């Protein structure tokens, strides 16, 4: 499929807005990194805990990181348009 197909399907922005928006994720990057590091760390704890209390600590921390990451992504869906609009405003608007 080409760009024309995307236009015909009605999924593109109005042509006047092409190239005027800065594409930037609104996911909180430091928090995302922290949650990702926690996920890896907790997986390591689970493995090296060898079934003892450290394993279960790791499992609990893993769930914390999972819910945190999901929460960050959910929050990002609320603000994705707003982020783009702010970028537009800074650059003089679309």
């Amino acid at each position, binding site marked *: 499929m080409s760009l024309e197909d995307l236009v015909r399907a009605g999924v593109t922005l109005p042509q006047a807005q092409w*190239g005027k928006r800065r594409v930037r994720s609104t996911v909180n990057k430091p928090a995302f990194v922290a949650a990702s590091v926690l996920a890896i760390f907790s997986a390591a704890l689970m493995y090296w805990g060898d079934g003892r209390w450290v394993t279960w600590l790791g499992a609990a921390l893993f769930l914390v990181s*999972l819910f945190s990451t*999901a929460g960050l992504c959910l929050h990002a869906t*609320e603000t994705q348009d707003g982020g783009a609009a702010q970028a537009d405003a800074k650059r003089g608007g679309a």
Partner: protein
Amino acid sequence: MPPMAQIAPPHREAEQVGLARNLGLLDVTMVGVGAMIGAGIFVLTGIAAGPAGPALILAFALNGVVTFVTAMVYAELGSAIPEAGGGYLWIKQGLPAWNGFLAGWMSWFAHAVAGSLYALGFGAYLGLVLRGLGLVPSWIPEAYLAKALAVGVALLFIGVNFKGVSETGKVGNIVTLAKIAILGVFIVSGVAAIARNPVYLEKFTPFATGGVTGVLTAMGLTFIAFEGYEIIVQAGEEVRNPKKNIPRAIFLSLAIVVPIYMLVAFAAMGAVEPGTDQPTWKWLAEHAELGLAEAARQFMPFGATLLLLGGLFSTMSALNATTFSSTRVSFAMGRDRNLPDAFARIHERTQTPYLALVASGALIIFMAVAIPIQDVAAAADVMFLLLFLQVNIAVIVIRKRYSDKLDYGFLMPFHPVLPAINIGLIGFLALFMLHFSVVAWFFVIGWVAVGLLLHRVYAFPREREEDLTPIILHEQPAPRPDRPRVLVPIANPRSAKTILDFAARIARPVNGQLVLLHIGTVPPQTPLTCGRRALERIRSTVEGAREMTEKLELESESIVRLAHEPWRAIVDTVEDHKIAITVMGWRGRRRAPETMIGGNIDRVLKYANCSTLVIQQGVPVPARRVLVPVADIDNASLLLSIGRLLRDDSDGQAQITIVHVLSPGVSVEQSEARVAKLREALQRPGLFDPEDAPISLQDERIELKTSKAADVVRSIADRSRNADVLVLGSSRANWLKRVVVGQRPYRIARRSACPVVMVAPRTPGVRFTAQTFFHFFREEPER
């Protein structure tokens, strides 16, 4: 009639054609959860326990990590390009043409082989049940029995999908909830058993009995249990606010499913007593696909029965879903001329893509019969991994090419580093499966090789350039606030004239506009965008209605909408087109006892954000004797307005009779107070009158009668003998009154000697069922 406003390229349909959006956030999240918690967890837990040991919990967690990154890819692309083809179309957009073909080809195989896995799982579960009941001789080997039953259930669901029946909507949600409930009880029972015996925690040591290799093998084997959220994107054309709800549903699904899987593994590993010296994970592995059911037998109340039921329902549900999805993929490839045109053929009667279905079913059955269940699982896993790998590549390319042109509801962070890392992880995991099952890779490589050859010699020369999607939604200018819009869903041409006449009587005094809605019903197996046949079936109705409205000399527009459920199309149109009043026809017979007047009308009354009139077949328009029973004084003015519109004003002789029935216990003072209040309400300007024009009951030949009766139903029904039409209204009633008096309004309509017009006023934020719609007969008004 003035021409309709259209904004469309010239080769589009003359009418406006749109799709009905069925699914809200909860619905589509349940779709994802239901698709993910399929048979995988029931069937694969025992099998994967062998390589990983107790570290199966870790394998599930790490699969959650890998899946989450791919889920972010799907969330990004699904929010920007919510197409029915999902990953297949994104790969076509982002990668070279042969990749696009290969993605569809591989996706077809992946879904079909997954279906084989679920069919075999069903066969194993049912075989266990039949053996337990002594219905199967013991000399029949388990594997053969499972395969025979797998073929049987696969044929059953091929038939189900051929007929166009689907486990969607309420039934699908019930099955999903039942699966979650059964797993929930399993988890709680297992955790409780471990809590009662903390020594059970020692079973988790050693943890990673197979080392890193074992964990990776278990990840590869169970990866298929983590796919299913991509169906959220495939349902994108039917999701409300898809830009936001698709990514949200994907993340919510994963946040629900991953912890459930980890807890299932914990409970299965920790709460089982093998009865021998062997560790639990070995015991589970010996029972393979029945491991979870055998584990439940030990510690869960009615464990074996519930898990067996859960396994049976899950495998059936998953088999139905994969038969459905593999058919859709091969249908899409046939439509795009990547496969023979026969794949795109839709059956005349059932409106389902029957040849694509037969081909997919044959593939499912072949794989179920040809190789053992472990290799089937591995083959499906590898294929899904390779598909997801391509989608991760596609997201990088699409972001590079189109990011400034697309409207994203979600963007993944650290692009392109994150998808690049995921490509590495997925690729590694897929290759690692070679260690577990060479047979699986044999089939995968063979299928891909055949696909590449097919593309080279067949598909590539035939690929079309133009977009074959037959239906698009025409954008409409926003309605002017001073032009009320009256919606008329047209289903039956014979009753259309009466309904149109009445709708015109509503629209004319206020210079309103008629909006005619024609709904093409499409079976769930067929994507809405491919409902061309449904359009052709209703074309004569559309043209006939247009001719009728021309004679009415009112501005009107026609909308043709495709939907799996007609009521959704009506509710969506009310919302999209700012409808003030909907006028619907009703045959007057109810199909099922639990619905008051019919499933579609009930739901429109419940969900449509506008006033709704339902006209029973046979209502004369105009009428000479209009009977309007009023119980809820708040609705009196509206009911009278409708009565006045129905009345024949040609010779000044037609009459409206307002009836207010009181219970015999009401005192004279209370009675007089109510009548005075009612009279005042009736004299207020009506729905379509200027605000400063009160109504004179005398001048308008409106008679107000009050009476007392213990049997309100009979009283009204008796009076209806002297009327041409009965106008019934709705009111709010608490749930207790609905339960107690629920059937009374329907009895009135059924006993009425004349046809009925039902009126449901618009009450934002309040949902009416048909029962509350009829609950206007009460002794005292409700506050």
